[in-house]
């Protein structure tokens, strides 16, 4: 009897010790880390601030005690220096946050339209920053030196149309390639314009590539690693709610949308199975038709642009000063191109009415692919025309291309504004007044992002021909941001479907990188590598190709004695095929190795997932076994709950004559109590930290199963042998002790014992009633004088069984156990309950 409180006290102590140990270990781990990692680790701890601070203080105390043994002065110094640096770092972070643009606007947009629309603005802001950076680079390294050492003055007067065409007045300015000289300026230092131009553009392109690859990789890592299309229902319930949304109307609308989606998904299940072969064929036909149509449109656009360019080229003359009409004619191509970019995507989005894509994602991807193809084909045709026609026919062809790009950028801007007017404002007006059926438009993220990507591609292509294009781009994006924000808040409603914005964003960055940036890069590289620069203008006049500026420079360097190593590197590394061959080989090997590693990890993930499923099976197996046991017991021997103390006693007395069955019974009683204790423990131990790992769950499941097996064995052994009551008791005690060991460190049970304690008192009441009924039955039975003792026993058992079945039916859904008490109070309750059980047990014998 006295062992129960002891055990509990011991358990409580053990738990406390365990926690302290854990904390000590954590502190030790943290002390071993570097300062940066330590802060990161402390920040990531799933604890409250107070606990974190406590741990942090402990770590700091530990560190200072360690250091005090060393030179105190040095330790103090290093400590204060590191503190100073840390504070500096924090204040830099603070300052950066202050500088961050449009924080309030971003919050507002997120609050009204959610994360998916916000991602467009984040992307726009990112592009804007990117352009500011590239403008600073280009302006700083190319334009400023030129401006200092005497720029070329424009030969033509300003007429106003230049703002649109970029020609005339601007032709010979720093705006374009042609305005830069090939001289080496000698001032404080020698400044070679050729080299500056070449290296600035190269470094800029390389930096762009690296930035894109990094952001793409990190985006892929966080968003695509384990993403799978499955589990939409649970996802909708638990992950789809956007906590950023704070606007009342938006919240209402979101709730409505979710409602509709859930209803749809419920009805979809029934619908999907009804699809017949003919319907499938019809769908397939529609897809085929729309793809053919869209591809046809794309090809048509490309071809018409080509013929238009040819027509324009016939009319254009190679002079520096055009007449006003001639200048205005140059606007035709950018106008048509931008018009196509505006109208054709709108046309594409009409297809959506006919195509019934099963998922919204597939529909969006189809739309994106079509738009990308269209823009690629248009840009491809233009580039081909520039490389092959303009480059041959004009004396200062780089500037001509620069002007063409300038016009494209400007017109693209006008059409973006028109697009948001037509696409959003007009459809809102139509949707609210003329055709209310259409409703207020949603913000089309895919289309808008593609427009941004296209605009950025123009800037990349133009960087070589017009180094100051990023300046135009900055103004353009800045105005666009404000415009889109106004248009969004006035014309649009929050998106109906909460799509997977993060994945879409990854796709967009990937798109920006792959066809568009790589395309622009290859175009610039081709120009620098194979085309002859124009003879009369630009920094590279007189060279065979742009790249030869490097070999000229190296030749010059050979005269300087100190720079032999540069020459050596150039000749033996940069210009040798073997070097590139080796590099390629090494990279291929590394890629192969990483690929293998990732394959291995994929397998591992699969295995781990399988393991979780297996654990689930283990658990349910264990549960089944326990339940079977409980079911099978009443047929052999009676089984008790601890609420039935008085009855149990009388049972024991009434069946006292039969020693073997009695022993069995007692063994079962002991076992029963064990089970109860286990359950109680499981309940008491429920408030485990929610971050328990799967592995510990595994362990516990295994233990629990083992224990169950042990119990089963015990039971069968007992039922085989006609044991004496004391022997059985001893065995039961043994069994109990045996199981108590593992139980002690058991924090929670793997089986589903921790059912919800709803209507607990109710269940207890019902159980009591059932028992009373059973007892009455028994009384009736024993009151019958004609029946023999065994007969009475039989009846008692039957009645009890009945009562128990009733009891269990109440007991199973709602456990009359502890209602999830927190921490130590759970322990105390468990202790009390156990004492009770012990009392019953002692009284019984």
């Amino acid at each position, binding site marked *: 009897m006295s062992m129960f409180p002891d055990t509990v006290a011991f358990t409580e102590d053990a738990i406390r010790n365990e926690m302290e140990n854990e904390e000590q270990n954590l502190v030790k781990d943290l002390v071993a880390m570097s300062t940066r990692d330590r802060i990161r680790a402390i920040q990531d701890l799933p604890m409250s*601030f107070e606990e974190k601070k406590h741990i942090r203080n402990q770590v700091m105390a530990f560190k200072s005690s360690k250091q005090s043994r060393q030179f105190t002065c040095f330790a103090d110094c290093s400590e204060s220096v590191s503190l100073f640096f840390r504070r500096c770092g924090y204040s830099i972070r603070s300052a950066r946050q202050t500088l961050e643009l449009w924080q309030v606007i971003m919050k507002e947009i997120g609050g009204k339209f959610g994360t998916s629309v916000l991602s467009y603005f984040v992307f726009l802001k990112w592009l804007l920053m990117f352009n500011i950076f590239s403008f600073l680079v280009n302006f700083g390294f190319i334009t400023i030196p030129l401006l200092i050492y005497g720029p070329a003055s424009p030969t033509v007067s300003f007429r106003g149309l230049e703002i649109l065409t970029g020609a005339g007045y601007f032709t010979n300015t720093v705006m374009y390639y042609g305005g830069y000289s090939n001289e080496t300026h000698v001032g404080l230092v020698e400044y070679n314009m050729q080299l500056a131009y070449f290296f600035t553009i190269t470094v800029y392109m390389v930096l762009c590539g690296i930035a894109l690859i990094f952001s793409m990789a990190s985006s892929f890592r966080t968003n695509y690693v384990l*993403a799978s299309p499955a589990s939409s229902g649970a996802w909708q319930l638990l992950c789809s709610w956007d906590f950023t949304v704070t606007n009342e109307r938006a919240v209402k609308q979101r709730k409505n949308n*979710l409602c509709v989606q859930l209803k749809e998904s419920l009805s979809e299940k029934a619908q999907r199975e009804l699809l017949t072969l003919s319907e499938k064929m019809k769908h397939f036909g529609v897809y085929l038709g729309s793809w053919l149509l869209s591809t046809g449109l794309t090809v048509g656009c490309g071809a018409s642009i080509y013929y238009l360019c040819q027509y324009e080229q016939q009319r254009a003359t190679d002079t520096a000063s055009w007449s006003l009409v001639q200048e205005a004619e140059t606007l035709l191509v950018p106008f048509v191109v931008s018009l196509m970019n505006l109208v054709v995507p709108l046309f594409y989005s009409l297809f959506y009415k006919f195509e019934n894509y099963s998922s919204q994602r597939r529909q969006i991807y189809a739309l994106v692919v079509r738009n990308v193809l269209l823009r690629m084909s248009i840009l491809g045709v233009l580039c081909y025309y520039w490389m092959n026609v303009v480059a041959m026919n004009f004396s200062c062809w780089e500037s001509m291309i620069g002007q063409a790009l300038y016009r494209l950028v400007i017109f693209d801007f006008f059409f973006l504004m028109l697009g948001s007017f037509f696409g959003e404002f007009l459809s809102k007006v139509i949707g609210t007044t003329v055709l209310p059926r259409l409703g207020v438009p949603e913000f089309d993220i895919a289309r808008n992002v593609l427009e941004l990507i296209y605009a950025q591609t123009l800037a990349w292509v133009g960087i070589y021909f017009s180094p100051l294009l990023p300046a135009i781009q900055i103004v353009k994006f800045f105005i666009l941001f404000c415009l889109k924000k106004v248009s969004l808040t006035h014309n649009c409603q929050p998106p109906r479907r909460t799509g997977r914005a993060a994945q879409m964003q990854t796709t967009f960055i990937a798109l920006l990188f792959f066809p568009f940036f790589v395309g622009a890069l290859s175009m610039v590289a081709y120009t620098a590598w194979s085309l002859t620069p124009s003879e009369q203008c630009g920094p590279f006049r007189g060279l065979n190709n742009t790249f030869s500026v490097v070999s000229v420079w190296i030749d010059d360097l050979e005269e300087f004695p100190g720079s032999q190593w540069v020459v050596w590197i150039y000749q033996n590394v940069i210009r040798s095929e073997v070097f590139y061959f080796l590099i390629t080989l090494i990279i291929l090997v590394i890629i192969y190795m990483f690929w293998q590693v990732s394959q291995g990890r994929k397998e591992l993930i699969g295995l781990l997932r399988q393991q979780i499923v297996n654990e689930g099976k283990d658990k*349910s197996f264990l549960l089944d076994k326990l339940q079977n046991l409980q079911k099978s017991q009443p047929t052999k021997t009676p089984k008790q709950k601890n609420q039935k103390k008085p009855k149990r006693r009388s049972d024991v007395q009434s069946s006292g004559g039969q020693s073997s069955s009695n022993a069995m019974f007692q063994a079962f009683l002991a076992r029963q109590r064990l089970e109860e204790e286990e359950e109680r423990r499981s309940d008491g131990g429920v408030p485990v930290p929610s971050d328990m790992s799967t592995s510990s*769950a595994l362990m516990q499941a295994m233990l629990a199963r083992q224990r169950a097996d042990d119990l089963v064995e015990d039971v069968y052994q007992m039922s085989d042998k006609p044991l004496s009551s004391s022997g059985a008791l001893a065995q039961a005690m043994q069994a109990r002790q045996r199981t108590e060991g593992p139980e002690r460190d058991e924090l929670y049970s793997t089986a589903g014992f921790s059912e919800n304690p709803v209507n607990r008192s109710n269940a207890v009441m019902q159980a009591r009633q059932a028992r009373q009924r059973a007892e009455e039955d028994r009384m009736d039975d024993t009151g019958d004088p004609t029946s023999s003792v065994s007969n009475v026993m039989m009846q008692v058992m039957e009645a009890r069984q009945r009562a128990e079945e009733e009891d269990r039916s109440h007991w199973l859904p709602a456990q009359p156990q502890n209602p*999830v008490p927190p921490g130590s109070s759970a322990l105390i309750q468990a202790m009390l309950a156990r004492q009770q059980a012990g009392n019953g047990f002692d009284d019984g014998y």
Partner: protein
Amino acid sequence: MGNKQTIFTDEQLDAYQDCTFFTRKEILRLHGRYHELAPHLVPMDYTKEPDCNVPLALIVNMPELKENPFRNRIVESFSEDGMGNLSFNEFVDMFSVLSEMAPRELKAIYAFKIYDFNVDNYLCKEDLEKTLNRLTKEELTPEEVELVCEKAIEEADLDGDSKLSFADFENMISRAPDFLSTFHIRI
């Protein structure tokens, strides 16, 4: 660092910066917001670490939380007494976990707490029903609610105990990349 403020000592600010995802400026702003909630309760001087709590009713009235269907659960999950009274430290904790910088694991732990209405460390059907009712203005019929919840459990439950443990939940979160950006409240 030139601007002098008397709300916190430098050591306190260091501790905040080391233990949360906020910078000094944000901590001060958070204090401002906290003070705004109950100007008569919350002192401006925190150098002595005064012991004061702001009740749930005031906190859920913040514009950031006001329309959130889980506002009460969010605040309750972060309050030590479980009733939703938040001290300043808990207040900072709450927005730290909900900030942009917090890692997925940390967010997942607290999201699980928020969705676990009956605090039994499992998301059972009852929890999901409550979640769903909060998400949908209670327009679905009880049968539909039950169906949706059953489907959700069936999809996400790996170990077959017909309720979602933290492991199940985390596994689901790891497949939902949006969670990082949507479980986020800008302050």
